[in-house]
Every structure is written in C-alpha cells, then in structure tokens.
C-alpha cells in the first residue's frame, strides 16, 4: 500500500513518519505525475493560502478528479481547508471534494491554539489532538458524517454540542486538528483502513 503526502509545504515529514511507522510506503507528491500509483493521499497541515498558491493547475485538476473518483483522501487542518467546498475567510482555490463549509483560523490566533483530548466516533473517547490556528466546520452537507465536535470556551456555537472538527464523506476524511503531532496512531490507522477497504 502506497500513501502519497502532498508535499508543497507544511507538516509533510510528520505524516510520512507515521506512515512508515505503520509499515506502509509513503511517497511525496509535488507534481501531477506523483499522483500515479498511490492508493491514498494525505493533505497535511501548513498554510492553506501558500499550499493552494503552490498547487499548479494540472495537479489541482488531477487531485480533484481522483478524489471524486473515490481515491481515499485525508486532509488535516490546511488540508481540510483545501478539500472543503467553501471557505469563510479564505482566498485560495478549493478542491470541493467534501460538502462542507470551513471557517479559517476559527479558534483565533496562535495564542488561542491548544491541545486536548477528543471523543471521535469509531476511533476512541480520549484521542489526543493539537489545534493550531485551527479551522472548524460551519456547515455540513447531507452526505457528511460528523465524527467529532469541540465546544470552544466562551464562544457561541450553533449547536449545544460544539462545532464539528472531524468529518467524513465517502472516501474523504477531514480534521481541524493535527493527529500527526502526537504519538497516538489511531487516526492514521482509521484512514489506512479506509484505504484498504477501497482497494
């Protein structure tokens, strides 16, 4: 099994390390041709404006096409922003691979960044996660399953349960936070199981 990691900018090394640790082959994706022969793709955290600026048209087109054709894709933080259908406060291009609206820097600036433990459907009740200038989801389409929510302190939320911070629609998995910054491998295992099921 070969997992590509979009390597234009951001936390590429961390995702590759987890993939290797789980005894799968990781490969770097910078150009459209790098998308050949991968079984799944991770879009890492980074700066979404920079990553979308660095993505050339061919790569953007091929990536969007593969995601619509069913290639398992996992976007963390900036990766979630790129995969979303719509972005509040965004100025980059969207791959529109998952029917959600995302708000950029929704929890605030770096001083508001935090780590915590989350209950995630199908994964665990105490998964350690790191939110860095993180986005959250403000709208989900009908086909989207919400896997985790987080209630920010002192912020009004549309739901008493908090804002969705992890979601899945068919082959596309997204999270507001960075599982790659912790030693807990359960979220990556969950994604690799999606890749296995798709092949």
């Amino acid at each position, binding site marked *: 099994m070969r997992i590509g990691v979009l390597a234009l900018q951001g936390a*590429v090394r961390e995702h590759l390390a987890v993939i290797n640790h789980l005894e799968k082959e990781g490969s770097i994706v910078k150009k459209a041709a790098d998308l050949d022969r991968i079984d799944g793709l991770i879009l890492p955290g980074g700066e979404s404006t920079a990553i979308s600026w660095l993505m050339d048209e061919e790569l953007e087109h091929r990536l969007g096409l593969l995601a619509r054709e069913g290639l398992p894709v996992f976007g963390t933080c900036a990766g979630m922003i790129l995969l979303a259908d719509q972005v509040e406060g965004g100025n980059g291009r969207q791959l529109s691979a998952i029917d959600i609206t995302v708000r950029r820097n929704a929890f605030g*600036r*770096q001083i508001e960044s*935090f780590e915590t433990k989350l209950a995630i459907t199908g994964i665990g009740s105490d998964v350690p996660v*790191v939110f860095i*200038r993180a986005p959250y989801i403000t709208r989900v389409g009908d086909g989207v399953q919400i896997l985790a929510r987080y209630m920010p302190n002192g912020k009004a939320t549309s739901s008493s349960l908090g804002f969705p911070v992890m979601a899945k629609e068919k082959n596309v998995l997204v999270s507001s936070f960075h599982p790659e*910054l912790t030693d807990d491998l359960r979220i990556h295992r969950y994604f690799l199981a999606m890749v296995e099921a798709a092949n």
Partner: protein
Amino acid sequence: MMERGTFRVKSGLAEMLKGGVIMDVTTTEQAKIAEDAGAVAVMALERVPADIRAQGGVARMADPTKIKEIMTTVSIPVMAKVRIGHFAEAQILEALEVDYIDESEVLTPADQQYHIDKWVFTVPFVCGARDLGEACRRITEGAAMIRTKGEPGTGNVVEAVKHMRLMNEQIREVLAAPEEELMQMAKEMGAPHEILLLIRREGKLPVVNFAAGGIATPADAAMMMQLGCDGVFVGSGIFKSSDPAVRAQAIVRATTHYNDPKILAEVAANLGEPMVGINIDEIPPHEIMQVR
C-alpha cells in the same frame, strides 16, 4: 481539559511553516504582496535589516499600531521582533497577540548578558543561532523554533551557509558519539546535556530550523533547503529588490522545488535587479549583527 501554550502547541506552529518562506514587511501593502506571493508568514518590522544597517541608531520593536494594521491585513501568521533580552517588548507583542516573537540580533540588544525567559509566555519564540550550542541554549530558554543568524541585511548568503553547515556537522557528531562522551561534548559546545540527549533520541534538532540572514535569490533559498534547513526567512532580499512581487513568488517556488533544477532555472529567470549585496569582510567589526 484544554491546554494552551504547551511546547507542542508552540513548536507545532513552526512545524506547519516548514517548506515555506517568511518575509520581512514594513507596510500593509508589502504584507499583502507577501501573502499573495505564497508566504507562510510575515515578519512585521519598522525597517528591514539593510536599512537598519545603513541608517544606524538604536533599532527597537516596531510600533504596535503598525503591527496591528499588518495583523488585520493578512490572514497568515504575523511575527514581530523584539530586542534580545527585552522581555517588556515581548510582553507588549504577546498582548497584541502576534503569532510568533523573534528575539532578534537584527535589533539593538537590550541586555548584553541574558536572553528572555521564553517559558513564561504563551506566544512562541524563534531565536537565531550560529552553532549547535547556541541553538540548544535558546531551546533550553524556551525557544520553539530556531533560525540561522547569517549576517542580516547583507544579501550575502555566506554566513547562513556557514552556520547551517556547522550545526549539521555538530548534530552528526552528537549522533555518532558514544553516550559517555556526551557530557564533555555538552561542555565544549556550551549545549545543555538534556537537549543533546533529545537530539540523539529524535535524530535531529527537537525544533524546526530555518535559514535566515542574507538570503536574496531563489538559488540561495534552494541551496539552504538542500543543506537541510526546514524553511527560509527573507529579510531585505525581497523589498530591496527591483520587483518584489515577482521575486517573492520565485523564492516561494524555489523553496518548495529546491531539489528540481529545471524548475529552479525557470523561476530564477527575469526577476529584475536583486538587492545590492555587501561583502562580510567590508563590514566594520562593531556593525556585525550575528555576534550579538
């Protein structure tokens, strides 16, 4: 339970900036140009290093009004510089909620003996280093990101190369040494022993290490990336050149495609005039910034 300002949260933002370019800006217009060119963050300051060097005088933290304007103009992280040891300037930047504080030798040092205790802040710090000992001392003080010092404001990459190579060489020594030699090595390098142990465990510095101080061209950025740095700061190199937007974009692409000479040849062409460089040995000794 939720925790802010942990070391993981602080160093985590630096991890997200990897493979990117952080650009010095002095106005909102420059900040916008930087963001549009694909910068991962901007450094808000009063004067770029080349102007500080040319104009002399005491260089201080930028005016909070200017920093705030830049923070409202762009959506990418905004960093700002404080003088070495000036914890009150750092308190002001934390109150402004900047995303990263650079305790920087580019400004005139406020304390000739001590650096800031960075652990007491929620906002993370980046510090410059010329060798592994200096990097490890800053990390022990709480820095969550390191950059080479190079020689700021010169447009001359030679000092950044020297610092990066030296750090790489010293990390290799630490990794190769038998455990019992580590304490002596710590003493000789002036590096806290526990950080050397961390380096051995992780096989690399425990925080991100960017290149800074003299980077002026896409080729400079690509060279530093190939030497193993995690990303690039460009100070005077962009807005002291004849066509800042085009040069900024070129340096961003060169940093991503640092090991693809064909793309580098493409992006290095037709950039207009680079900033005028300075030879290091022509700088009077008291104007050398890296020794601060």
